[in-house]
């Protein structure tokens, strides 16, 4: 089932790596927790993209099943993350992650 109009897999890999790097970098340098959550989504979706691309290349649907799971779990993760965010905001009147350091030893 070779798709003749297929794009070379390397492009997907580069795109996914870029997306992941942007996400990881964002988590590291940004302090706004909403942006942090967005960056995490970005990293997850980079992985999703890579999985779908490889699934297509090897004509194996297994990876696509995983992607569905990841999307569902990511949605749940976003919900929990936003709930924590709201609670944290009520406590600290801020969503700056650098202020969330009450548990450090």
């Amino acid at each position, binding site marked *: 089932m070779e798709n003749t109009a297929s794009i070379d897999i390397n492009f997907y890999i580069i795109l996914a790596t870029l997306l992941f790097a942007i996400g990881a970098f964002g*988590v*590291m*340098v940004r302090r706004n927790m909403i942006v*942090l959550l967005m960056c995490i989504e970005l990293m997850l979706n980079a992985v999703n993209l890579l999985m779908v691309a490889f699934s297509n290349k090897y004509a194996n649907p297994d990876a696509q099943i995983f992607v569905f799971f990841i999307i569902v779990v990511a949605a749940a993760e976003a919900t929990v993350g936003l709930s924590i965010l709201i609670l944290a905001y009520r406590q600290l009147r801020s969503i700056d992650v650098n202020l*969330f350091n009450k548990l*450090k030893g």
Partner: protein
Amino acid sequence: MNIAELIIALIMLPLAGAFINGVFGKSLSKSLSGVIGTMAIAGSFILALFLFNQIENPHIVTLFRLVDVGSVQINVNFLVDHLSIWMTLIITGIGTLIHLFSMGYMKEDGGYYKFFTYLNLFIFAMLLLVLGGNYFVLFFGWEGVGICSFLLIGFHYNDQQKGIANGLAARKAFVMNRIGDVGLILAMFMLLNQFGTLDFHTINTTVSGNIAQNTTDHPALIVLTLSLFLAATGKSAQIPLFTWLPDAMAGPTPVSALIHAATMVTAGIYLVVRSNFLFELVPFTQEILLYIGLATSLVAAFMALRQNDIKKVLAYSTVSQLGLMVVALGLGAYTAAIFHVTTHAFFKALLFLGSGSVIHGLHHEQDIRKMGGLRKIMPITHVTFLIGTLAISGIPLLSGFFSKDEIIGHLYEHNVALYILLMISVLMTAIYMFRLYFLTFHGSFRGDEHTLKHAHESPLNMTLPLIILAVLSVVGGIINLPGLYLHDSAHWLNEYLSKVPGLDVLPHHAPEQGITLMLMGIASVMSIGTLIWAYRNYVQKGNLAKQEENLSGWERLSNRKLFWDEVYHTVFVQPVLWISRQLNHMIEIRGLRAGVFGLARGISNLGQPLAKLQNGLVSSYLFWMVLGLILLFGINLLNTL
């Protein structure tokens, strides 16, 4: 039931009693926990009677293998022979009576169930000790009775006035017993080294096979038997380790009767009798036993002469009587020793329980200077105590007369000079016992009005054991009457114990009948003469115990126990304390503590910078994670190149 089942049930009953009282005791009523404790021992006694009927030959009951290391195999097994059954009968029989007595004596005590737990546990350990088929099981029992003794001596550790003294007495008993225990442990190592086993039976067979090879006074055997005897001096309160026993009187009186008079202190005697096949090979050690026993008997009897605490007199008397038993052991007259163990258990338990009854009736007054004239207030206690006194003093036809006379007879045959020394000890026994009796029960009451008004005879559950023990003290002698004009079967105990290996040979120094009669005559005249003298002195002349300031030279020595404790304190305790303090200063503080603290500080210093990594910033954690990831990738890349 067969013998194995009987023996297991016999041993487990006291343990079950201890378990029930120990776990549920708090929620049981006082009378119930007392009844449980007493019934457990009574049950054991009945089972012991069954065994007594059944046993024909020595039996070994093996339960399971405990140690299996290389060539050393140690089983938990029980040796059921005539000796162990005889000891079991004494322990459970006297134990039952003393449990019964305790139900009355401890009535007002807060730790009632705890007391019965310890007592039952003690009986369990004691049964392990006498029934164990090898030195290892014996050692378990040995340590078990030690810890129970410790717990019971210090039973009133939270007493307002005497709590600390009680605790110190318990500690003293424990430490001195530990010194003896070292001997037993060393002996076990040496036995394992020499014979490769700890079983009495196997060692006995091996030793008997080797007698032909002239092994007597072999140095290894001398050390071995001396180690065993060191253990015996600890438990059976002989010189040099006897000073704990008088202090142990801090415990409740039933404890003194059970543990420190009738049973536990005879464990050392039992140990030597059980190991007789080893001691027989070493005349050197036997000589030492003889002299130590004699010295202990004399010293303790002398110390008892001017004691004023009713229990202390009895305690020194116990030490003195134990010395007599050790003399018998030194002479190889093992049956005579066991005979005296038996009669001594009767009359000394009786005397202690009698003194307990007096103390109970006078609301914990123990000083005989504040007693007197109690024979009208406590008629049953008075009569039974009198019987006990007569028995221990060797008045003819009572049990103590026969058992003492047997030992005396053997010693006379061995050495007349030593015989005279022992007779001095016997004479002193009669003197201090009659002094105790007359000062307590005759004359007029010397305590305060209040005590006199409330003085009362003890209830039936306390007087019943007294009566039973008094009967036994009177008739106990018939189990081993001297041969004289009777048939040989009068030596019932000799016959009975002769089925035990090693006890079947007659002692080396059995006196002839004429000499026996003469010795008996001398002993009788002496004890009766002392009785008359004591009556004149204490009742007709009305002499009383002097105050401590008025004591003359030898009286002061006796009252202060020859300053034995003080000497030990200066010679052993002080130097040990000094060395400990030095070690604490040099090694503990400067060496160990500095080292340990330094190590801790070093690790702490190492940890400080690492702890900074945990700064609570999620982004920094992620940074390190990514850095690690890149590092891993890098290493992987390098490896693939």
